[in-house]
């Protein structure tokens, strides 16, 4: 580590830390260990667990496809979209808040898993249809 670096950047960062610190003291007023753990843990779990996980799955998919690399996106896109919906709506889809949701909103939470599966099926089905159509068109063009 050498020297200070850019004085302009230093000044911007120190001003920013003043605001972060002022709010941070208030954020941590409570179960501060757990709150700090959530704050930092969110970044750590994303960068060191979630991202390597989906990047690894993607790399595996591309490797597994071998010479048929052009086909990868017909699996990759529905996987990514369906996985994203699962990630965002996990509490409802998994049913872990079903009881509370029914009590609070007076509505059943049983349909979320089914609807997510339907959307997933539509995504993969749609992808398969587009794929089949493109392959068919390619064959006609070359044949």
């Amino acid at each position, binding site marked *: *580590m*050498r*020297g*200070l*670096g*850019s004085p302009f*950047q*230093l000044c*911007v*960062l*120190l*001003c*920013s*830390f*003043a*605001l*972060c610190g*002022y*709010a*941070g003291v*208030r*954020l941590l*007023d*409570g*179960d501060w260990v757990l*709150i700090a*753990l959530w*704050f*930092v843990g*969110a*970044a750590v779990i994303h*960068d060191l667990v979630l*991202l390597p996980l989906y*990047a690894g799955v993607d790399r595996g998919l*591309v490797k597994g496809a071998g010479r048929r*690399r052009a086909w*990868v*996106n017909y699996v*990759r*896109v529905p996987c*990514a*979209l369906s996985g*994203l*919906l699962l990630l*965002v*709506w996990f*509490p*409802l*889809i998994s049913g*872990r808040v079903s009881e509370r949701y029914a*009590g*609070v*909103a*007076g*509505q059943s939470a049983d*349909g*979320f898993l089914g*609807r*997510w599966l339907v*959307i997933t099926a539509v995504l993969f089905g749609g992808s398969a249809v587009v794929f089949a159509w493109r392959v068919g068109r390619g064959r006609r063009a070359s044949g």
Partner: protein
Amino acid sequence: MARSLLRTPPARGPFAPDFWRSPLRGIRFTAVLGVVLLVGITILFVTGLLSYAAYNPDLARVNDMTPGKGLLGFYLFSWPTDPPWLYRLTQGVHVTLGLALVPVLLAKLWSVVPRLFTLPPARSLTHALERISLLLLVGGALFEFVTGILNVQLDYVFPGSFYPLHFYGAWVFFGAFLAHVVLKAPVAFRNLRAMREGSGEPGDEPDELAAPRPDRPTVSRRGAFGLVGGASLLLFATSAGRSFDGPLRETAVLTPHGGPEPGGGPGGFQINKTAAYVGVRAGETSEEAWRLTVAGRSGTARLSRADLLGLPLHSADLPIACVEGWSTSDQWWRGVRLRDLAALVGHDEPVDVLVESLQRRGPFRRAALRANQVEDPRSLLALFVNGEELTLDHGYPARIIVPAAPGVLNTKWVERLTFGEV
């Protein structure tokens, strides 16, 4: 610091530059996502601050979930009652836009992840501070998105009350966000300009995000943007409908308070909290048991529902809009004006009111309304909705309805109104 120690072993694993192979990464890819987030997060922050102000936290202790806010409440103002759909709009935008930005945020973080593994970890004091600032930026962004997304699904696993966590967390994040924008936005805009002018790859500055030994592409940059945009659109399309009624709400298939309405008839619109959930029993709300206490300057009145029906009744078409981002279109409410009830106990001038509910649980069992809200002729102690008596879940025997107020301030099962002292 001992430089020789940091230099000797060759960088391995993710620290080695050629570990990262995606040909998509590059400052232009990041710049586009960054500018989308710059606009989107600014809107999220502003609508979030508006939602905080909508609770009138500076009016009364009972409204204030963040009494230690200090200077962070500098901008607070009396929340208006016009337009009556104001909170419906600002909070619908806040939550729906937040959901739609999830894929953009994830793609942005993916595009810069190699920078996490730079060696040496800090080149200078400023560089070390910048990396700490980036931890606050990334941690803050994820903390805000995660707490918000969990809260709209009623999954209260976060460590404390949602209001202070999401509010103070937003300010910590915004502090780091401001620094990041000041330091990086000029580069991002320069790159966007170069892209628009159609020059090939960046020539004048080295692309520190691009992979030095990229794999053969499996998707074009345009295709990757298409995936991110498509993912945003999918989240938008499966959420936005819950700000509307009927067939549009049914399109919000994966979102709480989306799908079909709860039951039919005049009371068949979205319920925030059912009577059973907050511990209100039908026995306490019966004609014989329930009395409304109205207190003010000239004394205290106890009114039965029949007494209230003897007062002048007025109508107002007003929506219900929740902090969780869902809302209903206008319902036709009928009841006694709050300002008439204030006049009943000696307040002819605009006055604040403390509203207390029969409900046993929930953070806003007691809530204060400001004089401008009490004064509005559309602000009612409602007894009817859509031409029928209120249902128990919508607040029978009497509930508050105030234009543009957040859902929880429209207190249900009201048992006491105290004018003048909040």
